[in-house]
């Protein structure tokens, strides 16, 4: 039996290739995702390992608390700096050869023109570089020129220098988070860890130690201390010595020591945590592609089992048992699965570079390194690819077993009668899916659980609709082809009849496209709703002539707002910040806002807002904010834990509308207490110009200020809105591109099904050609069928996407998100899907038109 299967497969190499492609692409996507994230992880592993060359131990403050406000929340550095005198204290410890302060600051380096800054969408680091022979960390290598000796000199990593067209001796403008920008002289360049790309895309400016402290707001302090041990003392030993010394001095509560290896691993792990979020994000799209591929496999096997009914019947007649027939089909699936997974794996490794290119197209430059193909990647790709192929083929294989031996003698292929069971199961899946959708969205689950529930709900609905859709495939095909019927186009009518003759095949072919379109529709609807709500909030709930926003993601110096107050007297200037704190012990995002926030942002405050209390260090809480399971009340006192200490904060007001706020926090905190954060940075500054000034005057002043600081975008309100919406669009577009994979697989499915159908109808097509159908008409007929299948699937997808999108927006309505239906966009998607469907019919159509009439007519 096994030999028969393999020979049969090899005899139909072409069909095998087309079927495999559905699995290959999905597996490639998955394998590519793994390789990409492993490669990135490896880049950071080696980056942090290099950074700690020459270091044996690290001493730093303890983290005051661990903030956890969900995946993707900004990981703010909560650890306070350490005082300078701790360095001397550590240096006295037994086994310590040298202890040295480290600055991990931010410095934005400008290009030679002093207007644009050098940036690769990665951190912009500012560090201290000690005189030759004194430094502990040996990360700086291949130095050209010399190291900065005084407060007016700077050294840059070689890539930043060359990207900024800067040469040694040139003036370099550098701007900082908290202190005003300054022009330095470039005295040297270096490579980090001996590799030009050693910084993984980050830029690095190195200053003389005291200057590094000044520009990072660390005068008299360090971010941490690097320690080198005496020769012969191990990392663990020196770390233990420091720990005991810290305990002895009573500082063990405040400071901690760890080995350099542990520190490097911790840093790499933090980045890998973020990478795993990215990994999961991509894997979801890979799984969607595989799911779509599963439909194609199911369909192909169903068709080939039906087409081979005679052959399988003959096997039965010759004495093969039903089980053997199932086994032969299942074996075929496994062979196809293993083959496709292997090809997919190889292709996956090959698509890593294009995938990186895709991300850089969307503004995320990923550092590249040597590709990491781990055993896990190989195993998971092979297992998942093979398993999915096998599972998809089970039901067609079981159907093969029911083929009676008599089928061998029958002239026409068996027409499969559809059992009621399929529809019952379809209905069950559909109902369960919808129930899970609503449970997930409205059942009060936390974010992750509700995302999983909605995901499973989508799976169930897709399967359910795919099972039920043969019921409506016939009427739908009839409805979709009414224009053809009206003009009495015979090719159109033949296409309609072909689409209707096997509704189950039409339905499952279109189901693959349905999934892609449903997700695209879902994203379009949710995106449009968020965007329109957001745009609406900017239009109606924010009053500002100009907005400062950061060009990179870290915020900017409060000095910018101070400069506006100074240089544009009479203007209203409101600063907004973001941070993480503990409120009565639980992690919360807080927004900081100047006390006059109500003049620019309408938070719809309830009566009783006490501005004086807010100014004096109070907080305004969202109406649904809860502490310990109870709603926060006006006048209540809450315990806030900041990175630099704890404080009781009075609730000075209750607000009811979050939309005008940046971020999603439940608390708006006075800026008075913001000094308890390590980095008091502004995220947005809203500015209303003074009455006496023209818009033009005000704008030029404001742009000038922004230019002075660098790293700030100064926009009028309309531009600000566009900029924010463009960020939304970028994310949406990225998701569309990732879904394109699934759509392409679905189109391959249409192509495959049509090719198989044409093979099945060879005789009939020959007959049509013999009685006078032209090649053009033949092609038109096949493309027509492709169009019907594509539009049918797209419409189903549109309906499902609409259901899910509408439901999610409804679930978000308590956060003020309003529903918006992007009709134009959806129509465009539908048209594009139709065109893509037509395109997928081109090749089978050409094949059909090329059939040799004589041979076709003589084929049974």
């Amino acid at each position, binding site marked *: 039996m096994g030999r028969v299967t393999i020979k049969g497969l090899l005899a139909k190499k072409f069909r095998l290739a087309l079927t495999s492609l559905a699995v290959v692409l999905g597996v490639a996507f998955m394998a590519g995702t793994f390789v990409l994230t492993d490669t990135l992880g490896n880049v950071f592993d080696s980056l942090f390992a290099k950074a700690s060359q020459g270091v044996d131990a690290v001493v730093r403050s303890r983290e005051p608390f661990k903030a956890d406000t969900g995946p993707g929340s900004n990981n703010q550095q909560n650890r306070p700096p350490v005082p300078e005198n701790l360095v001397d204290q550590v240096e006295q410890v037994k086994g310590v050869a040298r202890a040295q302060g480290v600055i991990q600051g931010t410095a934005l380096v400008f290009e030679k023109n002093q207007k644009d800054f050098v940036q690769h969408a990665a951190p912009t680091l500012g560090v201290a570089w000690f005189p030759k022979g004194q430094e502990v960390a040996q990360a700086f290598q291949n130095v050209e020129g010399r190291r900065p000796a005084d407060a007016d000199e700077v050294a840059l990593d070689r890539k930043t220098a060359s990207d900024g067209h800067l040469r040694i001796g040139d003036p370099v403008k550098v701007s900082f988070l908290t202190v005003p920008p300054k022009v330095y002289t470039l005295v040297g360049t270096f490579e980090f860890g001996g590799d030009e790309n050693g910084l993984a895309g980050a830029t690095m400016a190195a200053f003389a130690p005291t200057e590094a402290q000044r520009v990072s707001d660390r005068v008299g302090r360090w971010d941490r201390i690097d320690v080198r041990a005496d020769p012969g003392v191990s990392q663990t030993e020196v770390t233990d010595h420091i720990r005991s010394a810290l305990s002895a001095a009573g500082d063990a509560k405040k400071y901690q020591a760890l080995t350099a290896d542990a520190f490097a691993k911790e840093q790499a792990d933090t980045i890998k945590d973020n990478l795993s979020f990215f990994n999961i994000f991509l894997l979801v799209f890979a799984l969607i592609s595989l799911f779509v591929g599963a439909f194609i496999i199911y369909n192909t096997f169903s068709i080939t089992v039906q087409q081979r009914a005679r052959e399988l019947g003959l096997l039965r007649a010759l004495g093969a048992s039903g089980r053997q027939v199932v086994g032969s089909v299942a074996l075929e699936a496994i062979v196809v699965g293993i083959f496709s997974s292997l090809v997919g794996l190889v292709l996956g490794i090959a698509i890593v570079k294009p995938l990186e290119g895709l991300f850089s197209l969307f503004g995320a430059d990923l550092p590249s390194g040597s590709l990491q193909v781990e055993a896990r990647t190989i195993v998971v790709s092979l297992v998942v690819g093979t398993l999915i192929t096998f599972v998809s083929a089970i039901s067609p294989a079981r159907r093969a077993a029911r083929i009676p031996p008599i089928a061998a003698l029958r002239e026409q292929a068996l027409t499969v009668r559809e059992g009621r069971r399929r529809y019952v199961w379809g209905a069950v899946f559909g109902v369960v899916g919808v129930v899970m959708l609503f449970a997930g969205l409205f059942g009060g689950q936390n974010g992750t659980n509700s995302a999983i529930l909605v995901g499973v709900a989508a799976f169930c609905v897709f399967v359910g609709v795919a099972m039920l859709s043969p019921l409506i495939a016939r009427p739908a095909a009839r409805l979709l082809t009414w224009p053809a019927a009206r003009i*009495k186009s015979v090719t159109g009518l033949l296409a309609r009849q072909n689409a209707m003759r096997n509704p189950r095949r039409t339905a499952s072919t279109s189901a693959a496209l349905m999934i892609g379109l449903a997700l695209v529709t879902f994203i379009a609807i949710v995106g449009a709703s968020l965007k329109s709500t957001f745009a609406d909030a900017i239009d109606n709930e924010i009053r500002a002539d100009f907005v400062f926003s950061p060009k990179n993601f870290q915020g900017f110096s409060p000095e910018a707002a101070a400069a506006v107050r100074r240089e544009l007297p009479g203007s209203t200037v409101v600063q907004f910040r973001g941070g993480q704190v503990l409120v009565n012990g639980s992690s919360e995002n807080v927004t900081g806002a100047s006390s006059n926030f109500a003049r620019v942002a309408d938070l719809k405050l309830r009566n009783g807002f006490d501005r004086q209390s807010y100014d004096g260090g109070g907080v305004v809480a969202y109406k649904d904010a809860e502490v310990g399971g109870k709603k926060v009340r006006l006048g209540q006192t809450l315990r806030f834990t900041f990175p630099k200490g704890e404080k009781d904060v009075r609730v000075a007001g209750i607000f009811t509308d979050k939309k005008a706020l940046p971020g999603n926090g439940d608390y708006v905190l006075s800026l008075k207490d913001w000094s308890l954060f390590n980095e008091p940075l502004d995220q947005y500054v809203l500015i209303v110009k003074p009455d006496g000034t023209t818009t033009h005057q005000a704008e030029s002043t404001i742009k000038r200020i922004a230019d002075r600081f660098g790293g700030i975008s100064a926009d009028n309100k309309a531009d600000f809105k566009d900029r924010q919406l463009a960020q939304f669009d970028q994310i949406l577009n990225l998701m569309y591109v990732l879904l394109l994979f699934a759509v392409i697989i679905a189109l391959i499915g249409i192509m495959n099904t049509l090719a198989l159908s044409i093979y099945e109808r060879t*005789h*009939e097509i020959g007959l049509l*050609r013999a*009685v006078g159908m032209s*090649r053009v008409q033949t092609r038109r007929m096949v493309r027509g069928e492709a169009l019907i299948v594509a539009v049918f699937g797209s419409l189903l997808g549109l309906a499902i996407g609409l259901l899910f999108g509408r439901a999610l927006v409804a679930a978000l309505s308590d956060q003020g998100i309003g529903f918006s239906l992007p009709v134009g966009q959806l129509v465009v998607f539908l048209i594009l899907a139709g065109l893509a469907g037509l395109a997928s019919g081109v090749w089978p159509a050409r094949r059909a038109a090329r059939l040799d009439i*004589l041979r076709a*007519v003589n084929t*049974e």
Partner: protein
Amino acid sequence: MTTTGILPTSTAIAARAVDASKIYGTGEAQVRALDGINVDFARNHFTAIMGPSGSGKSTLLHCLAGLDRLTSGQIFLGDVEISAASEKQLTLIRRDRVGFIFQSYNLIPTLNAVENMTLPMSLAGTRPDRDWLNKIVDIVGLRDRLSHRPNELSGGQQQRVAVARALMSRPEIIFADEPTGNLDSRAGAEILSFMQSAVRDLGQTIVMVTHDPGAASYADRVVFLADGKIVDEMQAPTADAVLDRMKQLGG
């Protein structure tokens, strides 16, 4: 004799093969399916082509019908040389000037009987002549089966639809390839009488390939092929005479 449905034409010859050769393969494996055949098929005649297996009779029919191409020589339909026609022209010729009846699976399964009958006209985008359709439907006796799909018709009924389709477009010539090969003798006889009356009463021209002497006896003339050559012909054949001749040919 009526002339209903016959197109006015300039010649009395409906189809003609001139030095027609068809060679398959090369070198040692070369097979001469047609070996310099010259034959005319008169208009308003029912001609049968007979011969043993491998004599080239089907190849000749396919080449005459423009379904296959000659290696050398010429084929004329009326005064048009179809051996020189392009693929596009051939499609138009098949659609507008030629009718086909095959051995089996003659019909499009998704179309009902009447749709199958009018298919060539639908493909050409012309309207079928209602009166003509009615007349033909009555001749083949399928009035009560018009809306049936092929799988709801018996084999004989399916072939009658095929005959009706061939007649519908009033082609200059109808080619039939073993039209009764898959039918029982009663249904076969029925089909053959329809074909005969199409020639006698409607003025049609039919060329039929068959290996059945009984079927050939319905024709006005029988052409005998052997080894790709015309070896004999017989006017007003009877089944017995044809059978004798075939025995001599070793069929």
